[in-house]
């Protein structure tokens, strides 16, 4: 899909979420879904398979996040999947998150950890990153087992890498 079309979808989703008054929640749910889509080959192939009817794919989305996500998020994902743009959902969501962050005057802080963070840890980590970068951050946590341990935080162009994976890679290259 072209960049302008991805931008168009992102703008539409943000405006709908803002109209519904729950942009922060929606963009958070969309972000988690997009990362899950990236990490699951089966889910990605199911939601992007053009041979499966759109209604069936939308039903899969409904079954997947219907119980845990807001109705707005479920409907918006169903809209994108039904339009046959499931393959571009991660890119659209990334734009949504950036727009949402900008709307809140925050920078997106994508954090990857091997295990899930508690809400208290997320709060302290956001505060620590804001202190370190001097910017307000919109923290998004991705659970990524390949990190092995520790945390990798990306704020704008800055990467703060405290992961075990990177340490191991450094040891390997030094060897």
């Amino acid at each position, binding site marked *: 899909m072209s960049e302008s079309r991805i931008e168009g979808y992102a703008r539409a989703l943000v405006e709908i979420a803002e109209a519904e008054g729950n942009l922060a929640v929606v963009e958070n749910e969309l972000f988690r879904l997009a990362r899950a889509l990236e990490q699951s080959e089966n889910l990605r192939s199911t939601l992007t398979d053009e041979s499966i009817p759109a209604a069936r794919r939308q039903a899969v989305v409904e079954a997947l996040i219907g119980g845990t996500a807001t109705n707005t998020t479920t409907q918006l994902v169903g809209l994108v999947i039904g339009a046959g743009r499931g393959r571009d959902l991660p890119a659209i969501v990334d734009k949504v998150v950036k727009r949402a962050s900008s709307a809140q005057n925050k920078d997106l802080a994508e954090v990857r950890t091997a295990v899930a963070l508690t809400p208290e840890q997320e709060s302290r980590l956001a*505060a620590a990153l804001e202190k370190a970068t001097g910017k307000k951050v919109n923290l998004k946590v991705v659970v990524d087992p390949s990190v092995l341990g520790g945390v990798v935080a990306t704020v704008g162009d800055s990467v703060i890498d405290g992961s075990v994976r990177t340490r*191991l890679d450094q040891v390997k290259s030094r*060897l």
Partner: protein
Amino acid sequence: MRLIQLIAVEDPSQTHHWLFPETAEIIYGGISSLIIFAAIYKFGLPAAKKALNARTERIQKELDGASNALSQATQEASNIRAAIGDIAGERSRLVAEADQQAATMLTEGRARITAEVADLEARGDAEIAASRSRSSDELRGEISLLASQAAQRAVSASLNASAQQELIENFINSVGAAR
């Protein structure tokens, strides 16, 4: 002995010695001899002279011919000697030239062989060094791979829940203290 006795014995009946002729006989004999000598001188001597001259001329001609032949032979011998000299000179020149070429070829060949040997030695050294380096790199890579795999296994095994939380807390604290 008898002859001496005859010469010595003088016959008193004879008017002159039996060995010497009569005077008239001497005169006649002398005149006859003169006539004969004159005839010989007039007729025999020119013929003899002519025969001698012809013989002399023939001998001279033969001598001249022999002299010419000798001269030609000498000239021919000189030519042959010159030719032999030329051949010897040419042979010497060719031999010298061949020697020079052989010396040049030998020098160039030695230089080329020396250069080739040096090149081969350098290539051999480089190949040995490259092989050593390659083997060393491969060994180092293998050790590195095994060590990193072992390190990953050891680290993964030690990363229990409390270790994970400790890493996260350390990260939060270090980032918070960074500024």
